[in-house]
């Protein structure tokens, strides 16, 4: 048996699985989108239906605000944990990466415990303070699973920055904020773009959290879900999935070409 033949045989299980359960189903999804009454016009239909457009805009808006917030919080925490060694540091780091393994539904439940009817905020404050099911609640849920993802990407990049750069800036008399602004942030720029793209794409596609919290909010994954299960509008559900998939895939491709890591868009 030649080594060339053996290598090909090694790829065979992967090739058959991927063909049967990834390539063919995705092809079917794209074709299925055009199988309705409008054919390929289904994409034009999306643009003409105010409900889809507003869901799309709402999803983009929430994802964008979550991305900005997660970048701000996680970059601050990552830089702080990167340059300070103190007892309890690794504990803080574990806490900040804990939600990585939480499914979206669990994240949704965490927000219900914070801001639901029996939630902490409602118990501690006078009056009726329930915002788990509002867009702010959804924002908090998305933020919850975005913080660890952004933190890990930024920390990995911060580790690689040459400390000599910072020392040089300081010896030249730069105050701390200028060191951050002129040295650290430019050095972190690729990682920040990558982390931002990951956070944005993850939030765009998040289903579990929206499923738990967005009972009244139209975000794209929930619209796809209701089109498919309640309205049985398979062509539209497929077309919206194709749009969503292309957006998140494109973003993550950009992210990876900038950072080189392996990142999943779960949640």
């Amino acid at each position: 048996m030649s080594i060339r033949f053996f290598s090909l045989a090694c790829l065979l299980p992967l090739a058959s699985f991927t063909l049967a359960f990834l390539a063919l189903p995705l092809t079917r999804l794209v074709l299925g989108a055009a199988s309705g009454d409008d054919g390929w016009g289904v994409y034009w239909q999306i643009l003409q239906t105010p409900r889809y457009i507003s869901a799309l805009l709402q999803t983009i808006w929430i994802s964008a605000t979550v991305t900005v917030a997660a970048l701000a919080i996680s970059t601050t925490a990552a830089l702080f944990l990167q340059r300070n060694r103190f007892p309890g540091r690794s504990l803080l780091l574990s806490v900040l990466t804990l939600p990585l393994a939480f499914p979206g539904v669990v994240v949704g439940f965490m927000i219900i415990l914070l801001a639901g009817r029996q939630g902490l905020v409602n118990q501690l404050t006078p009056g009726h303070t329930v915002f788990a099911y509002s867009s702010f609640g959804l924002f908090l849920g998305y933020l919850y699973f975005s913080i660890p993802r952004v933190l890990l990407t930024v920390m990995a990049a911060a580790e690689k920055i040459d400390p000599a750069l910072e020392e040089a800036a300081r010896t030249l008399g730069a105050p701390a904020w200028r060191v951050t602004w002129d040295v650290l942030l430019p050095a972190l720029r690729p990682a920040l773009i990558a982390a931002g793209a990951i956070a944005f794409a993850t939030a765009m596609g998040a289903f579990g959290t929206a499923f738990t919290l967005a009972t009244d909010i139209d975000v794209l994954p929930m619209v796809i879900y209701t089109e498919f299960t309640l309205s049985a509008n398979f062509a539209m559900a497929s077309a919206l999935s194709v749009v969503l998939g292309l957006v998140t895939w494109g973003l993550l491709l950009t992210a990876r070409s900038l950072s080189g890591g392996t990142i999943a868009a779960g949640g």
Partner: protein
Amino acid sequence: MRIAKALQLTLTLLACAFLLVPTIQSVLAGVTANYFRGLSSGLTLKWVAEVWSLYSGSIFLSIGLALACLVVTTLIGVPAAYALARRPGRGSRVIEEFVSLPLAIPGLALALALLQLYGSLQGFRAHWSFILVGHVLYTLPFMLRAVLAVLAAIDLRSLEESAATLGAGPWRRFIDVVVPNALPGVLAGGLTVVTLSIGEFNLTWMLHTPFLKTLPVGLADSYASMRLEIASAYTLVFFVMIVPLLMAMQWASSRAQRMFR
């Protein structure tokens, strides 16, 4: 400088509190007799017992699926990673890229794609292997990449050449040289696969049937229809399973990275 540091620490601690407080709440609520009255109503394991009687089937299904997923991803991923590592280049990059698509496309879209193609095959649609396909789809890239990273870092070619001069054929070299060298990657990838499979919801929610509810599907169910104490106790059970796995996964991944830097 000192003020800036204090502000950074405060923000870091706030972020920690935001992530940690609800998990503690959920742990406490799961063992409190009446959450609305607070801890003074006493601690109890009755909610955990109730979760066990209601959902133990889901928990075992999830464990079984995760183990099956581990076996399948190992059998597919390790040989494939070897083949890709032997011939690094454009073709290998494209294959890796394509296999990794399920990381970039939302699970909901993948599930719709699977349902539209295979939904009408009743025997398959209603079988647990249909959910397994979804889990393998989502976790396979992690196994592939973990093993590939390890194999790319060692000098595979000269190791194999020495084995070949000693008369070992391709199959012997794979089993006796490649697999032992790939083990740290298989360990890291395997722990990731199991952790992700146990927590997978986005695909599973669409693929599951009323008779096949996995742990996270049961969680969604309990959040929607059970009292807060039961939902919390179930979440507590999930934490007890997932947190050690997450820690082992992070340990194995950083170990594999350290070994082959």
